[in-house]
């Protein structure tokens, strides 16, 4: 029993690096998209705002699986755009999807910073970029931390979908193991669960910490 569990874990760990690397890259990409889109949506220029709103709504309004299949199977044929290996497509799809959600976190956090802060910054004649960089963003960041923590955990869970475009992640090896050792199926999936949970632990810890920082807050 214990032996088999250990056996399975060793087997699954072949997919560990794929899961972790996709998670790290997709998380980083989604954070970047979140800031780019979140800030763009607050610009004066209506074209930039419109394009960003379109991106955010499309990616929030459709499911990640469909986006993944679109980018992997449809886009190359329809538009002759080849994004690269399935690893890259996975990272891009997950990053764009969660980036869309998180851009709203960025936007609402920026709006949540007290208006008096902007006014004081104007009174000191800081330029719009300086206001954002030195005054608004540092305060908004603290407000964003808890949500960014939660979304990071979701991104980790979302990576399990990449087995559907042929990536050999933890879930992929779990499936293979089960199909060759049918009686051990439940055990295999239990181990898959445990493995994801262990990877998520530091994230859970980080997002708790983020919540604390946010709660300590920025009241003047």
């Amino acid at each position: 029993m214990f032996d088999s569990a250990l056996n399975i874990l060793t087997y699954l760990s072949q997919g560990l690096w794929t899961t972790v690397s996709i998670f790290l890259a997709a998380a980083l990409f989604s954070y970047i998209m979140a800031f780019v889109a979140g800030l763009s949506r607050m610009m004066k220029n209506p074209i930039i705002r419109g394009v960003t709103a379109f991106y955010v709504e499309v990616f929030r309004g459709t499911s990640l699986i469909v986006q993944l299949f679109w980018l992997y199977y449809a886009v190359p044929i329809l538009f002759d755009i080849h994004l690269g290996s399935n690893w890259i497509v996975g990272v891009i799809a997950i990053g764009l999807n969660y980036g869309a959600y998180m851009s709203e976190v960025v936007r609402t956090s920026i709006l949540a910073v007290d208006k008096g802060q902007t006014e004081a910054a104007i009174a000191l004649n800081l330029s719009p970029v300086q206001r954002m960089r030195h005054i608004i963003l540092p305060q908004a960041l603290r407000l964003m931390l808890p949500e960014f923590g939660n979304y990071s955990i979701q991104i980790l869970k979302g990576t399990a979908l990449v087995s559907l475009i042929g990536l050999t992640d933890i879930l992929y090896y779990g499936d293979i193991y089960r199909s060759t050792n049918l009686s051990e199926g439940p055990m295999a999936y239990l181990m898959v669960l445990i493995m994801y949970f262990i990877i998520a632990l530091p994230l859970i810890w980080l997002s708790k910490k983020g919540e604390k920082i946010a709660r300590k807050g920025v009241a003047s």
Partner: protein
Amino acid sequence: MEPIVQYKDVHKSFGDVHVLKGINLDIRPTEKIAIIGPSGSGKTTIIRLLMTLEEPTEGDIIVDGQNLWKMESGKGMKKASEKHLGIVRNDIGMVFQHFNLFPHKTILDNCVVPLVNVRKMKKSEAVELSKQMLDRVGLGDKYESYPTQLSGGQKQRVAMARALVMKPKIMLFDEVTSALDPELVGEVLEVIRDLADNEDMAMVLVTHEMDFALEVADRVLFLDEGVIAESGTAEEVINESDNPRLQDFLRRFRGE
């Protein structure tokens, strides 16, 4: 002497609400002006227009010879760009009712950040100057504290130091004591008194502290329903005017 600020028939509406109805006002370069008037009469709005926090719906505001909200373009005047506003408001500073200190920065950095970024001062110089100013307002032992660690009176004194290091030619004060506990009002008024006595800059104080206004202001304006209803020395406005609305305001103010 040329006025440092001129309001020329300035109007301001918020939607349907006509708040300022033709403000004409010249401020001399060293003048200390107090604005009094009932709640909602537009006192805050007057100075927010000058600080570029609100845009007038009509009229012109001239600062040191330059039109604040309008700029030359090929044909006639057009709405000021952010760059134009940045140039003109460089001469203006403001202290707010609710302090608006930057809570994520130390007291010292609250002063240093604008000096370094706007005045392009070297960090070491900015620190030196900021410390001097914090010493002057009585916070020499708090450089590394954060705003949340201070009392209301201390916060407001920091806010004044922060505005002062920028060396504005015109300093605006919007009821800077009205959010304070009564026992903390004195320490803040004392700083303002020091500035009024020792600084050459023009000062505009929106205030409910009538006695204080009497004491420091060269001129008192009584604002009523969006117009300057009375203007003169404190003596003239507060003690000699027979404007019934002013009388009424003063009576209610003194709780008679």
